[in-house]
């Protein structure tokens, strides 16, 4: 009956893109990966929901490599080494065979930079032979930053460069699926290099930033397109632009050391956050992009919430797009789509985190997030309903695997009050203390900085002796766990 009800419009349907709360993979191995290579999949409650390679352990063969047809990191017969013991002390882009543990690995898109991993253990490492000409390495920064409904990651990938929107299919150099030159819809063409684009599916709002070059030019033209058709549902990109309800733009002057670092975050309330890495620090500001109905006449300054905010936490030498396109500033969202994160490494090439986290309901509400590790990192991935975790691959010999987990309140969107961050610790007693104190912190809007804390997961790393576990993003886990009450989903 429910199906009939849906057909006749009397019920609700679940978006086929929607997934249960996030899973992640954890790779553990002994030194060379000869006798033990394990891959386990955990849910957001850190329960093991799959150990698909259990039979490959203790075989003293490269069985795992054969089972996965892995020519990249198999034992003995590999192109790029056989273990992932890297501490990120000095590894540069030329050490890309070690970059699987870098924080550049995971953003909001399901595919990852250096591998793709399924919930069923089908990890396929990218062939690194042409990595410097791959999509992610060269033009990953052109992807749209998407603000989507709960449980949904971008399943279509649109890229925007110059006046062209293109649809592509992941980290490869195959032809585009679609291409549309939208210049005829622009109200101002002073600047002809698109350097950042954000889209909000709820409001069908597409915001794009054009500059005079893809380097450090400060001139900016910001267009705000409001459509009547959802970009993620159109057959051709042209359909979105053919069904615009309003178009506005404003001019302004913003500078980063490289325009490819810009991230555009279109909030549900029509405020839009713009931010990115700038030298060793980072900048962010929110602008009112609601329909004013007066064409261009409002300036950027009149739309701005207060002033640009520099990253408020600790900084040290770290690399961004000015040092190479592949170091572009990333964007991710929590599973429920209520908080977003513009992030880059704290230390040089891929360790620690410097981030702005902002409410996606109201991008005027934002704080800095900081973790100052200078070795042995891991990527960060969405965790639980409204959080993230990751960032640690310290040796688990004699200790639990640790991660940096933090979460927000999904209803906390008022920029006039402090932001609450929930954190854990290395002790259950400290996490659920014998008092009424909040565990974590509350941070002043805009200027506040949250240093996230290390948490024990009580998970072993995958091997009983020396082991540096690697966290893997998973490209699709579907509705896993959504019907399991212990899973913690809504």
């Amino acid at each position, binding site marked *: 009956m429910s199906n009939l009800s849906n057909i006749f419009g009397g019920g609700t349907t679940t978006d086929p893109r929607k997934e249960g709360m996030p899973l992640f993979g954890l790779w553990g191995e002994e030194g060379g990966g000869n006798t033990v290579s394990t891959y386990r999949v955990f849910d957001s409650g850190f329960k093991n929901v799959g150990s698909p390679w259990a039979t490959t352990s203790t075989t003293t063969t490269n069985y795992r490599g054969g089972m996965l047809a892995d020519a990249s990191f198999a034992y003995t017969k590999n192109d790029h080494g056989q273990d992932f*013991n890297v501490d990120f*002390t000095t590894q540069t882009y030329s050490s890309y065979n070690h970059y699987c543990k870098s924080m550049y690995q995971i953003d909001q898109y399901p595919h990852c930079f250096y591998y793709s991993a399924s919930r069923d253990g089908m990890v396929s490492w990218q062939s690194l032979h042409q990595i410097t000409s791959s999509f992610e390495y060269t033009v990953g920064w052109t992807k749209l930053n998407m603000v989507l409904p709960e449980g949904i990651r971008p399943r279509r990938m649109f890229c925007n460069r110059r006046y062209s929107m293109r649809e592509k299919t992941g980290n490869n150099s195959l032809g585009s699926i679609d291409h549309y030159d939208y210049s005829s819809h622009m109200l101002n063409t002073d600047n002809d290099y698109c350097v950042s684009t954000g889209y909000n599916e709820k409001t069908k709002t597409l915001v794009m930033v054009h500059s005079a070059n893809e380097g450090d030019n400060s001139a900016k033209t910001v267009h705000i397109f409001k459509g009547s058709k959802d970009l993620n549902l159109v057959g051709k990109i042209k359909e979105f632009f053919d069904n615009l309800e309003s178009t506005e733009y404003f001019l302004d002057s913003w500078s980063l050391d490289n325009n490819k670092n810009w991230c555009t975050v279109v909030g549900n309330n029509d405020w839009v956050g713009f931010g990115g890495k700038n030298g060793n620090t980072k900048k962010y500001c929110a602008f009112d992009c609601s329909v004013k109905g007066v064409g261009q006449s409002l300036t950027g300054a009149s739309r701005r919430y207060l002033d640009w905010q520099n990253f*408020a*936490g600790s900084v040290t*030498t770290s690399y961004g797009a000015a040092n190479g396109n592949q170091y572009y500033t990333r964007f991710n969202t929590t599973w429920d789509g209520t908080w977003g994160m513009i992030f880059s490494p704290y230390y040089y090439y891929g360790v620690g985190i410097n981030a702005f986290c902002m409410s996606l309901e109201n991008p005027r509400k934002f704080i800095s997030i*900081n973790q100052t590790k200078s070795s042995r990192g891991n990527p960060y991935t969405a965790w639980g309903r409204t959080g993230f975790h990751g960032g640690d691959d310290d040796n688990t*010999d004699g200790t639990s695997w640790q991660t940096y987990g933090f979460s927000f309140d999904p209803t906390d969107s008022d920029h006039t009050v402090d932001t609450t961050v929930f954190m854990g610790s290395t002790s259950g007693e400290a996490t659920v203390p014998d008092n009424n104190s909040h565990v974590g912190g509350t941070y002043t809007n805009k*200027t*506040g900085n949250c*240093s996230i804390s290390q948490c024990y997961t009580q998970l072993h790393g995958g091997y009983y002796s020396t082991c540096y576990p690697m966290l893997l993003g998973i490209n699709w886990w579907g509705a896993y766990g959504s019907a399991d009450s212990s899973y913690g989903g809504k």
Partner: protein
Amino acid sequence: MAIYYFTNSGEPATPIEETGEDLMKKGLAIKATVPDGIEAWRLSYDIAAKAVVVYAEGQDEAGAIAQKVTDGAAQAVKDKEKQDADTAASEA
């Protein structure tokens, strides 16, 4: 010498006075004086000794990174030795 704010576990938190003083008021930071010209990744605060610690003190940035490489390599050797010993013990 400059002011720096550290977390209660001794990690660098912020060099920015407005942010640091706010964290102090909330009991989330410790204020300390640090030497000039040292990158933050080399700084930490020893909670017990109540003193700032500079990694590879006396060296410049390049020297500190070289020291980090040396220390990392030495730790990797120790980890491998431990692993080999564990493996040998388990097979004995």
